[in-house]
């Protein structure tokens, strides 16, 4: 059981100190390498904002990987409480971007739902249950966000703490395992021993229909994982006959994990049930219409929940709804159908493969990567990529569609790269602009860029070699290229060098290279290449 006063550990990607009590401990904003041994671990991430949003697919997939890492490292006595990823803070409603935020949040929600469904140490909380009580202006103060990466406005912290502690209570103390049921005047109207199978009220008109629905609801709870037991004062033979013969009876012998139908003290019976099932008495809820029996059990076994029974059968439906939500609802989000979030899932799968397969070579081979290389097409996508790509971009020159078309008309080459693997199609995610001077047999790689999400698979080198081979086929013998340093593209600084180009000049943030083409390059056979100029 989790103790609220005990210190807990919060994994976070932003400043959330204002939301938790002072004894909480916190991870860094991004990376972590180990899982602390606090009994309660909390995972509260916010949607990436600002500059990070263009990488949202990768980031969200990465968040899920991190959560899985934590779950794998956790001991059995630890609990991980995961908050959903709120979309309330994403204010800009760009057409495409906004949809991907919602998809991202939905993907994340489903992934953590899956985790909590298969691992009882993992719980989740819909954070928007809290945030939806506020207007966006009440939620965020951009001043504090930019001063301290504080997403949630500090004033809201106190209310959040209260709400969170209530949730913690719900998760902690209320979850029961077994529902112990009386029979007469509880699961049916009347007394079986006196009224007989034909005389008890079950199904048909009121009040029988209310009892029938009560049974049906209990059955659904059982299907959702609640254990059922009988504790009644009946002849077991009568009860078995009832179960076998009454046409409207829903709960029968097979639905109960334990049946105590005798004239013993009910407190004693329930204690025996607890022993037989090997679960604690504090995991029981006892339902009985007889106030004397309830009092007796409450007195003898105070750790058992004994709710008051409704006076009227028509109240049974609402009664059971409350019983279920108070004591049995697994603290998790409701399932609902929604849009497919294929791309995220694929990325998660890819990463799983990466960790399960040892070497990167094997990993690449197993992906069955297919590269499609196009010449002088996909113009608008290429222009868009020159505008948007910052990290793997050698020269970071920005072009419009018209400028690219001009290049094509003047005999230069525009290459674009499509990447597919066994998990899905990434679309056009790489481009190169090569300015050629056929008379001098010379070509200049003006731009060379790849989207980050396809990196780490050696694709950047294969694409370059293919281009060089193509140029060689066109009679080109000398290649020039450049690296122009920006704040973001440092990862490409040695790219041309690594591919055998020679440095001819190096000055303030620019490196110029040259490469003589004497023969064709061999292409790594792990990749299947489809192209527009012959296989």
């Amino acid at each position, binding site marked *: 059981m989790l103790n609220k006063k005990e210190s807990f550990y919060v994994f976070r990607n932003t*400043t959330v*100190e*204002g939301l938790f009590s002072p004894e909480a401990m916190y991870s860094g904003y991004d990376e972590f390498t180990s899982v602390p041994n606090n009994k309660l671990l909390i995972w509260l991430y916010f949607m990436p904002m600002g500059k990070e949003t263009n990488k949202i697919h990768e980031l969200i997939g990465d968040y899920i990987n991190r959560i899985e890492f934590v779950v794998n490292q956790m001991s059995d006595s630890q609990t991980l409480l995961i908050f959903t990823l709120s979309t309330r803070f994403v204010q800009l409603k760009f057409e495409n971007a906004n949809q991907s935020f919602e998809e991202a949040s939905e993907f994340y929600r489903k992934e953590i739902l899956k985790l909590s469904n298969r691992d009882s140490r993992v719980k989740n909380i819909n954070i928007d249950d809290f945030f939806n009580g506020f207007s966006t202006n009440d939620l965020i*103060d951009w*001043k*504090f966000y*930019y*001063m*301290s990466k*504080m997403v949630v*406005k*500090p*004033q809201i*912290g106190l209310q959040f703490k209260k709400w969170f502690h209530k949730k913690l209570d719900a998760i902690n103390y209320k979850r029961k395992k077994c529902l112990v049921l009386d029979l007469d005047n509880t699961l049916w109207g009347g007394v079986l021993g006196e009224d007989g199978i034909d005389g008890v009220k079950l199904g048909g008109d009121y009040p029988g229909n209310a009892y029938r629905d009560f049974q049906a609801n209990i059955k659904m709870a059982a299907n959702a994982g609640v254990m059922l037991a009988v504790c009644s004062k009946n002849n077991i033979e009568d009860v078995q006959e009832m179960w076998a013969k009454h046409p409207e009876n829903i709960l029968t012998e097979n639905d109960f994990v334990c049946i105590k139908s005798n004239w013993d003290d009910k407190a004693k019976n329930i204690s025996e049930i607890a022993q037989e099932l090997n679960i604690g008495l504090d995991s029981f809820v006892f339902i009985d219409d007889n106030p004397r029996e309830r009092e007796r059990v409450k007195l003898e076994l105070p750790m058992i929940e004994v709710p008051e029974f409704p006076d009227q059968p028509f109240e049974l439906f609402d009664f059971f709804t409350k019983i279920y939500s108070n004591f049995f609802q697994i603290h998790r989000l409701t399932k609902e159908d929604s849009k497919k979030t294929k791309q995220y899932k694929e990325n998660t799968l890819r990463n799983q493969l990466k960790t399960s397969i040892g070497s990167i070579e094997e990993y690449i081979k197993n992906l069955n990567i297919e590269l499609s290389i196009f010449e002088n097409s996909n113009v608008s996508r290429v222009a868009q990529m020159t505008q948007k790509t910052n990290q793997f971009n050698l020269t970071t020159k920005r072009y419009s569609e018209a400028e690219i078309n001009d290049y094509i008309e003047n005999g230069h080459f525009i290459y674009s790269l499509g990447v597919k693997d066994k998990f899905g199609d990434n679309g056009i995610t790489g481009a190169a602009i090569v300015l050629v001077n056929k008379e001098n047999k010379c070509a200049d790689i003006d731009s060379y860029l790849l989207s980050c999400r396809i990196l780490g698979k050696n694709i950047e080198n294969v694409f370059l070699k293919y281009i060089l081979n193509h140029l060689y086929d066109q009679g080109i013998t000398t290649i020039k290229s450049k690296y122009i340093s920006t704040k973001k593209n440092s990862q490409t600084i040695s790219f041309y060098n690594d591919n055998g180009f020679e440095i001819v000049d190096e000055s303030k943030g620019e490196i110029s290279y040259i490469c003589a083409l004497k023969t064709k390059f061999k292409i790594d056979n792990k990749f299947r290449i489809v192209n527009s100029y012959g296989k």
Partner: protein
Amino acid sequence: MENKIKEIMAEVFVCNKEDINIDTNKDDLDNWDSLQHLLFVSQLESELGLKFTPEEICEMNGFAEIIKIINLKLNS
């Protein structure tokens, strides 16, 4: 006004109101760290109905400066 500010400080920094005087600054109160500072400022903003700029927030490192900046705001 000064009394009100002391009350807010005592609440946010978990200390006695009486311990706060014109010379009190960040180093004098254990809980006055950068994060609590922002919570304090946001509390001040909502209680006094004022908005401080990031530059002002950075300068509000002692009781005297806080009073000075608030008075400037109120008089402008």
